[in-house]
């Protein structure tokens, strides 16, 4: 993989909530263009907090998040131009059709001059059924909604994509289709940071895999390294290990 300027960068990032819980403890990570970084970890490990910090939904206690070199705390609006987001179990606007949902979020993302066909093309790309394009989203299955969620990320055409548990609750076919799209985006040069519980798919899609525990990145492996190691065993060993000392 060619090394270049990282699109996503967490620099000594920590987050302690008002109730005193340390959700993230001095995290350092980088995601290069054309790279998929999978963050693994149990609930409360700090995966979603990392994504929330990148999106400036919460301020960091220490450290900095950079998107395309822009400090997200200092200039969040500029930084958000370069990132697309797919969340877990997004409901979208049930009274809107798939195209109306896509149109709204495309415009928010700065794509104001798209034609009807542009929306259809994106929805075809994620294998959403043609008949669903102009149907109200409230009748969509979770898989269909998730595909529409990816369409929203694709249509923004941002260099970075953040995904929070995107395959949670999807059936195996839908999850496989989802990962195929991720692979396509990666090949287009997108920097993808994905939080997931799914060890097998993380190994399958991830160029790098990080394991988080109690807010710390306790392990990081490249795809090459994982060819010779058993990710499942590593993950379970880390989960079973003694709690970390609280800093």
């Amino acid at each position, binding site marked *: 993989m060619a090394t270049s300027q990282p699109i996503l960068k967490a620099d000594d990032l920590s987050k302690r909530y008002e109730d005193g819980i340390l959700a993230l403890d001095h995290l350092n990570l980088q995601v290069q263009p054309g790279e998929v970084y999978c963050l693994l970890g149990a609930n409360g490990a700090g995966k*979603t907090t990392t994504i*929330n910090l990148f*999106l400036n*939904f*919460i301020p960091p206690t220490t450290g900095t998040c950079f998107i395309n070199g822009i400090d997200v705390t200092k200039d969040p*609006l*500029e930084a*958000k*131009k370069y*990132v*697309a*987001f797919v*969340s*877990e*179990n*997004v*409901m*979208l*606007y*049930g*009274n*809107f059709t798939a195209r*109306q949902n896509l149109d*709204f*979020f495309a*415009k*928010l*993302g*700065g794509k104001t001059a798209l034609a009807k066909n542009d929306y259809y093309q994106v929805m075809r790309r994620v294998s959403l059924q043609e008949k669903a394009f102009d149907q109200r989203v409230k009748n969509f299955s979770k898989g269909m909604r998730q595909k529409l*969620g990816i369409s*929203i990320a694709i249509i*923004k055409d941002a260099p970075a994509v*953040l995904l929070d548990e995107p395959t949670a609750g999807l059936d195996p076919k839908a999850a496989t289709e989802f990962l195929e799209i991720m692979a396509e985006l990666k090949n287009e040069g997108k920097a993808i940071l994905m939080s997931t519980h799914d060890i097998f798919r993380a190994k399958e899609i991830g160029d790098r895999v990080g394991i988080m525990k109690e807010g710390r990145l306790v392990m990081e492996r490249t795809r090459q390294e994982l060819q010779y190691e058993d990710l499942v065993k590593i993950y379970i060993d880390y989960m079973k290990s003694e709690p970390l000392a609280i800093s």
Partner: protein
Amino acid sequence: MFRTVFKKELLDQILSPKFLIVSLLCLGLVPASLLLNYASFESAFHEYDAAQKEAKATTTVYREPSVLSTFGIGLESILPKSVAFAKFSTDARGTQAQNEVLSNINGKLDFVVITSFLLGLFAVLYAGTLASGEKEAGTLKLILANPVKRSTVIAAKFLGGFSVLLIPFAVSTLLGALLLLLDGFPLFEAGNLARILSLLALSVLYLSALFSLGLLISTWTHRTSLALLASFFVWIFLTFIIPRTSEPIAGLIRRVPSEEVMTASRAQARHQIEKEKGKALAPLMDKYLNDKDRGTWDWDGYTKARGPVAKEFEERLGQTLQKFDEDYERARSARRALSLNISRLSPASAYTQAALNVCHTGIADLENFSRSLQAHYGQLFQVLFRYQFSDIFESEDGSSRRQMGGDSRPSGKIDYPKFRYVFPAYEDTLRAAAPDIILLVLFNLIFFAAAYFSFTRYDVR
């Protein structure tokens, strides 16, 4: 960005089932209430007109009902249809409420009530889920993952959502106004149009305050169910509890004797002075109206001779009773003002007070009517009551009592003063409604500013 979020909000709300429900309710209730209340006004006006035509010049006066009670009944149903004057007393007769027992129990439906209760509830519930609903659906995160300011989102949500609420309000009001016109409502007469437009402006101001309040609740909650529940309780508190408890609370703070106690005290004071007057007039009575020999009564002599003696007592009686009435009215007015101020903690109450004043059925009109009656009594006193006398002769132990009444007026036709109730001018109404209008503006500013700042710190996770 603002346009995008505004258009989304508009479309999302219009496509929701709640929009259909609100529209159907408004389209059914607003025109129907306007037509029914106009019919009720017409009936009251015909009664008034007939009474005016048939009435001879007397001491009884009639109150013209307000045509704008079509929009807000307010005090119209409890104000008297006629008032009969006598020396030192007035007797209010006949109210609409006496004929409408069930309406007294259940309350009547009019435009002001529909706006205050029904649309007010919809406003607070509509807005109550704007932020929490998006958070629950996960769409708020998707929106804010884009380069859009939170301030833009909240402003667009407010304007978009509020515009949707105004659609059924505006359409049903227009339809109602059109039907009223066809029914003969004098829309373009006597400043009615200006007052109705003012009423609509007040309604928009009130609904916008409640919408902002709902938005504030929405930014304080993270679940739709909780937001709806909180909005509903706040609405109950503002539209039922505060307005309905303000008067008893004011009564506890400023105690005013009941009308019965006041009337009894007034009668006692009157009796005392009448008794003193009787003592002073007793020699004259013996002289001119000797009970032993009725055939030799010199009534004219008595009437002439009693004048200088009774004058002092009658003046004292007039002043005493006037002071009684003024003190009592002052105490009641102070309690009413306190009660009004307490109730003004609620936007619903501020709106209702201002709206009813605009419809000529509010407290400003009650006070104006009361002043008109006082002025008319003064005129009647000059031409009639000051000549009337009633002398009471009572023994010390109260065992014997004799009453003589008469009229010392020079002969000739009595020139009764004409009475026609003049509604307050538009400027006077605005002056009376000014505190409530200012409060509604303040409620808007406070609630929206609080919602705005709360949303900028809203946890979207």
